[in-house]
């Protein structure tokens, strides 16, 4: 187990290191003169020179990279070009919207997918199964941002139950509150979750159907367990491996989905931040946000791998 852990941690650290090199190379070296890109073609040479100095572009790339990564490790980041505040502060502020949204969407996805997947598996090849699978096939084909627009159309335009977008904030001082905040995130989370759940429900259903055919399940039934008992005691745990794999992969989709959905609902999260940064050519913000998101994806993959080991003891034994 400890060798498995050590191997996995080494891969994790190496992936983060290479990712940081790549992000730095793409956003700081590839454009040539970063200051010129940020200020645009119409900028005067003096303005470009001033920004070059401010960004430290006169120093060697290796020193700038070391500074950037060293700063990130200590929680110290450069100032945003357009906001004038450290990017860490901007990201932390926007995470107050993005993180609850992603968690809410993931929770909804898991509940919906497991419920539908188990329901379909229990009625394998019967009407309920066929219906759920047909619905999920349609769900996978629907772009989440279009589904979001349809939700706005129904709940904001036709029924006028909620506003078409925006976020009131979490505290009463901002004019919002916990209930108001959660209400504003409900439709975005639903839009994200439904499409993801469609995919996960299919995986859950086929994983459960596969495990139900195994000999040990037949043995469990033969010794008198009902189908429901066998499902809860033996099938679910074994079916979780493919489900966890897909959930890990889906988390990357969820992160990018959040960026898109925030733009549909005009939510002041990371997604809005990065798009405003692109519009302002604020490469400092783009660099740090992209690095942060990549780090989240890599961390989630690590967590999923560690969960495998918990769910499947064979991994611990075989990988040492």
């Amino acid at each position, binding site marked *: 187990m400890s060798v498995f852990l050590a191997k996995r941690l080494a891969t994790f650290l190496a992936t983060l290191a290479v990712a940081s090199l790549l992000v730095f190379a*793409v956003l700081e070296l590839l454009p040539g003169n970063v200051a010129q890109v940020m200020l645009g073609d119409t900028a005067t040479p003096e303005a470009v020179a001033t920004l070059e100095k401010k960004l430290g572009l006169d120093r060697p790339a290796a020193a700038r990279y070391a500074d950037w990564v060293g700063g990130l490790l200590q929680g110290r980041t450069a100032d945003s070009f357009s906001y004038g505040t450290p990017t860490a502060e901007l990201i932390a502020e926007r995470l107050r919207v993005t993180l609850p949204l992603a968690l809410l969407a993931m929770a909804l996805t898991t509940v919906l997918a497991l419920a539908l997947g188990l329901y379909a598996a229990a009625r394998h090849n019967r009407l309920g199964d066929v219906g759920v699978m047909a619905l999920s096939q349609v769900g996978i084909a629907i772009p989440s941002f279009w589904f979001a*627009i349809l939700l706005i159309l129904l709940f904001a335009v036709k029924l006028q139950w909620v506003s078409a977008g925006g976020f009131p904030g979490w505290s009463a001082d901002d004019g919002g509150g916990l209930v108001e905040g959660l209400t504003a995130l409900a439709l975005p989370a639903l839009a994200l979750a439904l499409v993801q759940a469609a995919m996960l429900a299919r995986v859950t259903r086929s994983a459960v159907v596969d495990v139900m055919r195994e000999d040990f399940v037949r043995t469990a039934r033969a010794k008198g367990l009902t189908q429901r008992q066998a499902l809860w005691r033996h099938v679910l745990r074994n079916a979780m491996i493919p489900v966890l794999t897909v959930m890990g992969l889906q988390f990357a989709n969820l992160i*990018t989905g959040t960026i898109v959905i925030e733009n549909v609902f005009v939510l002041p999260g990371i997604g809005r931040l990065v798009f405003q940064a692109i519009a302002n050519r604020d490469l400092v913000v783009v660099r740090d946000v992209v690095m942060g998101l990549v780090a989240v994806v890599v961390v989630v993959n690590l967590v999923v791998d560690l969960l495998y080991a918990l769910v499947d003891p064979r991994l611990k034994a075989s990988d040492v």
Partner: protein
Amino acid sequence: MSEAAGFWRRAARHPSFLAGALLAALLVAAALLSLVWTPYPPAEIDIPNKLAAPSAAHWLGTDSLGRDIASQLLAGARSAIVVGVVAVAIGLVLGVGLGCLAAARRGWVEELVMRAADFTFAFPALLSAIMLGAIYGPGLATGIVAIGIFYIPVFARLARGAASAVWAREYVLAARAAGFGPARITWDHVLPNIAAVLIVQATISFATAILAEAALSYLGLGTQPPQPSWGRMLNEAQTQLFQAPLLAVYPGVAIALSVLGLNLLGDGLRDLLDPRLARRR
């Protein structure tokens, strides 16, 4: 009966394959038709006729600039297909090349290719598009490259897994004993034997590419005006939700039907090309 005739006989009785093939054919037909004919030039602005309801003159009505929706939908199919074909081709050629190399050479080459593939998964297409868009500006090429890069590890992993299985077969051993090199064996034996899995994956990837292109264009990172795109049509429609809600419905239906068609086609092909999988379902 020949193998091809057998395939078509089974295909004709496979409902998911037939429905998928029909929808995919409609997508291709719309794109081809738009090359030679659309009811109006898709980018033609006609302010006096803006937000017109569906009528004989404008089958699906017009948008906020008076552009004909039906014409834009037809031309949008072209953008979807261009992005899908080029992005999948990038992933297929580079990914299969790397996957076959890994399977043929094994050892450190295989380890390097597979670790690189794992690493690329940390960069979803949208993040690559954000980085490329921030430097080079948004555009069709940015979207295609970002989506294509994401597919390289997908095809590399798949090709390496399937090719490794072929390398373990007796006929490859015989070819090696006869003195054929890895390149010749890959070309003559490995590729024809893994083609089925690659075709299925390419079809499903095509569907995902259409979804990704729509999202990028919706965000302004993909296809740029005046080139019509379903994603951008949805972006523009969102500003008119209260006045013209139907504008937000048509492009979404077009995307969903195309993706549904390609996914069904992929599922159907998987059943037809790999009967072992079909039996397990």
